[in-house]
C-alpha cells in the first residue's frame, strides 16, 4: 500500500501510527471494511436465526479492529491461517462478502463450494488458507507455510490467528518453538477475547499475559489493545518487518472482546450483562476508530453515513447473491476428497 506523502506525514507527526502511515483514502477503506465485517456478521446472524444457515457460527463482533489491524501491512500474497471465529480475518484479507454468504448458505458459489461453511471459510487466492474447526489446528500449518516461504525464498509472511483458548494447546507450543528455532517469517496473533468458550483466561492460563509465553520461545511478545486499530496495525507492522528481514517470528497478544456468545448456543452464563454492555458502549472498536477519524479530520458525518450505506448495499447484494446461487448436487458429495486425476 502506498503510504502518505512526506508533507502530509509531517502534518500528522503527533498522531498515532496509522494516521502517519496511511492516506485518508486508505483509512476510510479500513472503516468501510470494519463496517463490512460487522454488518456481514450481523447479516449472517440474522440469516442463521431465520433458519437460512445450517450448523452454527462463531461471531467476532467487537474484534474488527484486531482483524483489520493485523492484516493492514500484509501484501495480497502474504498468507494467514484463521480460526473458527474467522469471518473478520477473511474479509480483512480481501474476501468478497457475497461469496462468503454463499458459502454460509451452502451454495456452489461459496468459497468452499458449500463444503466448509462458516468454520472452514477460506479464500486461498487472497492468501487465506482457511479457518479451522480445531483450536490451535492452524498454528503449525502457518509455520509450515512460513517454512515454504523461507525454502522457496518467496518473501511471503504468514500470520497465524488464534484465540486465547489455543495458547494452552500443545500445537501452539510446538509450533512457536519450531518457528523460533528456524527463524521463520511467521506472526502469531493471539486474539485474547477473555474467554475460551466459557472459561476465562484467568482460570485457564498460568501466565497473566499470553504474550509472556513468547519469552519461552525467544521471540518478542507484544501486547496491544485489540480494540484500537492503530495500536494493532503498528504492532503488526513491526512484526512483518522483522519477519521479512529474516529475524523470525513475533507473538502479538491482541486484547479484545467478543460481544456475542461463543457460538449460537451460548447462554452467556459466565459473564454479566454489565460487562458486555461496558465493552459494547465504551470500547467498541468501530466507534473508537470512527471518532478518531473524525477528530483528526479524516472523515465527517456525511462520509461516515456514505460508508454505512455502501456497506449496507454490499451486504444486501451479498445475501441476494447467496440466495440466488445454486446448491451443490448430492451426486457431487464425493468431490474434492482426493485430487481429481486428469
Amino acid at each position, binding site marked *: 500500500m502506498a503510504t502518505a506523502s512526506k508533507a502530509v506525514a509531517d502534518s500528522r507527526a503527533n498522531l498515532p501510527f496509522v494516521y502517519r502511515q496511511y492516506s485518508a483514502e486508505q483509512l476510510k477503506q479500513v472503516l468501510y471494511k470494519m463496517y463490512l465485517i460487522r454488518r456481514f456478521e450481523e447479516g449472517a446472524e440474522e440469516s442463521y436465526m431465520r433458519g437460512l444457515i445450517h450448523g452454527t457460527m462463531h461471531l467476532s463482533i467487537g474484534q474488527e479492529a484486531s482483524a483489520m489491524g493485523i492484516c493492514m501491512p500484509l501484501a495480497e500474497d502474504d*498468507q494467514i*491461517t484463521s480460526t473458527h471465529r474467522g469471518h473478520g480475518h477473511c474479509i480483512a484479507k480481501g474476501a468478497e462478502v457475497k461469496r462468503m454468504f454463499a458459502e454460509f448458505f451452502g451454495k456452489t458459489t*461459496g*468459497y*468452499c*463450494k*458449500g*463444503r*466448509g461453511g462458516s468454520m*472452514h471459510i*477460506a479464500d*486461498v*487466492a487472497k492468501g487465506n*488458507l*482457511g479457518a*479451522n*474447526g*480445531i483450536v490451535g*489446528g492452524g*498454528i*503449525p*500449518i*502457518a*509455520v*509450515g*507455510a*512460513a*517454512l*515454504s*516461504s523461507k*525454502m*522457496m525464498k518467496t518473501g511471503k509472511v504468514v500470520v497465524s490467528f488464534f484465540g486465547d483458548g489455543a495458547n494452552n494447546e*500443545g*500445537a501452539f*507450543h*510446538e*509450533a512457536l*518453538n*519450531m518457528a523460533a*528455532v528456524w527463524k521463520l517469517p511467521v506472526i502469531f496473533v493471539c486474539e485474547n477475547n477473555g474467554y475460551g468458550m466459557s472459561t476465562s483466561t484467568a482460570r485457564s492460563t498460568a501466565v497473566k499475559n499470553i504474550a509472556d509465553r513468547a519469552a519461552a520461545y525467544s521471540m518478542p511478545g507484544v501486547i496491544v489493545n485489540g480494540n484500537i486499530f492503530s495500536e494493532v496495525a503498528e504492532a503488526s507492522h513491526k512484526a512483518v518487518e522483522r519477519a521479512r528481514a529474516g529475524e523470525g517470528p513475533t507473538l502479538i497478544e491482541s486484547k479484545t472482546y467478543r460481544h456475542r456468545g461463543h457460538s449460537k448456543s451460548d447462554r452467556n452464563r459466565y459473564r454479566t450483562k454489565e460487562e458486555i454492555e461496558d465493552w459494547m458502549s465504551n470500547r467498541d472498536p468501530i466507534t473508537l476508530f470512527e471518532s478518531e477519524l473524525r477528530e483528526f479530520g479524516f472523515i465527517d458525518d456525511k462520509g461516515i453515513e456514505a460508508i454505512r450505506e455502501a456497506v449496507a448495499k454490499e451486504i444486501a447484494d451479498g445475501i441476494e447473491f447467496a440466495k440466488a446461487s445454486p446448491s451443490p448436487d448430492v451426486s457431487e458429495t464425493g*468431490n*474434492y*476428497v*482426493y*485430487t*481429481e486425476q486428469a
Partner: protein
Amino acid sequence: MDAMVRELSYAQAIQEAMAIAMDMDERVFLMGEDIGVYGGAFQVTGDLVDRYGADRVLDTPISELGGAGVAVGAAVTGMRPIFEFQFSDFATLAMEQIVNQAAKMRFMLGGEVSVPVVMRFPAGSGTGAAAQHSQSLEAWLGHVPGLKVIQPATPYDAKGMLLAAVADPDPVMIFEHKLLYKAKGPVPEGYYTVPIGKADIRREGRDLTIVATSIMVQKALDAAAALEAEGIDVEVVDLRTIRPMDKQTVIDSVKKTSRLMCVYEAVKTLGIGAEVSAMIAESEAFDYLDAPIVRLGGAETPIPYNPELEKATVPQVPGIIVAARDLVKGVR
C-alpha cells in the same frame, strides 16, 4: 526396463527413492526427528544430510503434532515434504494434523488446495520394542477418507511406491515394517513408480487366495511354498495399498480359487481383514466362495516384550500353513 537391477535392502531402496525425488524436484525435502546426522531411528535417511544439507534433511524437535502440521502447511503452500516418524506409534501424537487437517483440507476448502505430503511410519513388531513402539496402526488411518495408505512389502515396491507417493497430489501415508528394512531384493536404478491403489499377485495358485500386507506377504509366500509339497496351490495377493483398495484384483483372485484368507499383523478385530472379507462378501465373488473366509491377524493384546510372547502375538508361517491347510481340506 533397461536400468541396471541390483540387490538393495528395503531401507536402501527408500533412501534411494528419497534421493531421486530430491534430485528431480527441489520442492521435495525431508523432515523428521533425528533424520540428519543421526541418519534416522532406523538409518533410513542415512547420510542424505551430507548430500542435501540440513535445510533439505531437516531435523525437527521432538514435536510430532507440530511437525506433522508444519509438513501439512508446507505441502499446502507449494513444497513436497516427506515427514518421517520415528515409530508409527507416534502417529497417535499427530492424529489431529493427519486426520483433521491433512485428510480434510482439500475437501473443506472445496478443492481449492491439495496437500501433497508424504508421511513415513516405521511400523510393526519383532524388534523387542514392546507395546508402545511395535504397533501396526495402518487401519486407523485407512479409515479416513482423504488419506492414501500404502504398505510396500518389497524393496522394489518401497522405492517405486515412495516415488509414486511424492508425485501424488494427496497425502500419502507409508507404513514400513521395521523388520523389512534389512530385507534385500532386486531394485532397478533410476526413477520408476509403482502405482498406488494397485495390488500385486505375488504367486499364482488355484486352491486358496491369501491376501496379505507388508511383512505378511513374505510369510504367506513361505507358507505357500511349504503347502505346494502337499499339493495345495496358494495364490498370494499383496494388497500394497489399503486405501484406496484394489478390490478387483482380490475379487478376481477369489473367483478363481473360491477360498479366501487374510493375513495381517495388526490386531485382527476391526481391521484390514474385516474390510477385505466384507468387501468380498458384498461382491460378485460371494457366489464363488466354497469355504468360509478366514482371517489371521494379531492377537487382541498389546505387543509384549518377551520375544516368544512377541512372536506368538502376530501370525507366523506355521500358523498360516495350518490355517490354509484346514481351509483347503475342509476342516473349517
